[in-house]
């Protein structure tokens, strides 16, 4: 099976002598569903950031989607990010844009026509049960609704990889369920690789998944 992420002796840190992740070696198969857990401050989010190039490896190597992340050029990083969908705990929606335009963002960046983008956005907003809110702006929606918009945006361009950082951390049960259903659907139907950083793995998932745990800078797979 192809590997979507390969880490070899990967070390990550913000300061020179303080490694958050230390000499981690692991790989993630394409099309798999992966949870990364760990205590607060253990380096879960930092590891996720390294997958989309927001932090560079301090040592070792990291390959994401066939692209080496060490000293990656801006153009290569932009190319890679156009094939990744990211969901943040704080949603990161553009406040001045309507819900529809927010979901359309990855399609605009990838250069899709308005017709294609429009129908894709309509379909996704239907899936997240927000089609009637498409003309509204993010601050007009609840937290749960905003996260559903962020989820729709992450799926809009059919990415090969979805990275989710505590996607249901602050959500009500209904919104959480919508998010998990969408992630499951993307994984089973579109074979999208899903990597979720969370404190708690939800019960009742209908997909097989792998579980990595971070402790004291070391990553190990939980059987």
């Amino acid at each position, binding site marked *: 099976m192809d590997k979507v992420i390969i880490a070899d002796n990967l070390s990550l840190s913000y300061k020179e002598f303080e490694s958050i992740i230390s000499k981690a070696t692991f790989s993630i198969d394409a099309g798999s569903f992966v949870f990364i857990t760990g205590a607060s401050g253990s380096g879960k989010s930092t590891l996720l950031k390294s997958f989309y190039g*927001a932090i560079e490896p301090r040592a070792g190597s990291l390959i994401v989607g066939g692209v080496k992340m060490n000293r990656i050029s801006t153009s290569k*990083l*932009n190319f890679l990010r*156009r094939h990744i969908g990211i969901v943040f705990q704080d949603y990161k929606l*553009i406040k001045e844009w309507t819900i529809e335009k927010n979901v359309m963002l*990855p399609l605009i*960046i990838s250069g899709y026509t308005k017709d294609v983008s429009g129908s894709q956005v309509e379909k996704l907003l239907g899936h997240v049960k927000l089609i009637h809110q498409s003309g509204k702006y993010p601050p007009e929606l609840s937290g749960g609704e905003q996260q559903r918009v962020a989820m729709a945006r992450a799926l809009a361009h059919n990415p090969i990889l979805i990275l989710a950082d505590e996607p249901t951390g602050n959500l009500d049960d209904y919104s959480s369920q919508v998010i998990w259903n969408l992630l499951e659907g993307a994984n089973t139907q579109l074979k999208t690789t899903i990597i979720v950083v969370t404190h708690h793995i939800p019960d009742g998932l209908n997909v097989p998944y792998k579980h990595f745990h971070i402790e004291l800078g070391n990553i190990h797979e939980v059987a």
Partner: protein
Amino acid sequence: MKSLKNHISLIIALFTVLFSVQIYVGVDRTIAAYETHLKNDYSIIVVANKSLTEPEFKAMHSLIERSEAISVDQVLQRLQGEMSKKNLDLLRITLPKFYRLYLNRFPTPEEITKLQKRLQSNAAIQRVEGYSQTHDTVYKLMLLFKDVVQIFSIAIAAVTSLLILKEMRLWQFQHADRMSIMALFGAPVWLRSAVLFRLAIVDAIIATIILCLAFFMIDQYGWMDVLLHTVGIDVQLFDFLGDSLRSLLIALGVSILLTLTIVIGHQEEE
């Protein structure tokens, strides 16, 4: 309304830049017109003991544009009743030749002194009158006026720079979130910044239009035109085509530079 507020801040800053530049240009043009006005009124009287031609005068100094002989007939006519014809004829022969010299531009006091010395060094020239006292006073006033305008323009430029810097920081703050989010989805720099560039270009055009309208009104109907006419200066304060184009280029230059500073200075969110 929110969008209008975003626009107004930059439009005011750009308008201030354009206004100070246009004021400086206008004053410069007024002074140039005034210099021409003074030059036309200004002449040097030369008394010579023999006839001198215009090429001879021109050869003496490059500042001399033309010469004009002053007729002595009027003076001699007044003496007709008091003197015999023979004496008058004798007087006509012995009287020196008077010339009025016109210059090709308004000279500095130093140039006047040099010119006078150069003329006086000619054996045929007996006396030169350059009205240096009047000249100095007017010219010193003009220089003072120019200095005041320069200081005024520098002060405006300094204040405007502060305004633009403040606006720049505001823009950076306002657009940082959106640019960071777009970057997370792989938007190239030009796409992330497209909105900023569009905003900057639109504001530059609006600021230029406002400036053109303001100066067109001042030039055509304003009190400035009347004031200048009363002191004998006829000047076009605002050249619609040339000045509009220059203002537009300055406004676009400043606003695009501002946008580039924001784009280059933007730190991607980690």
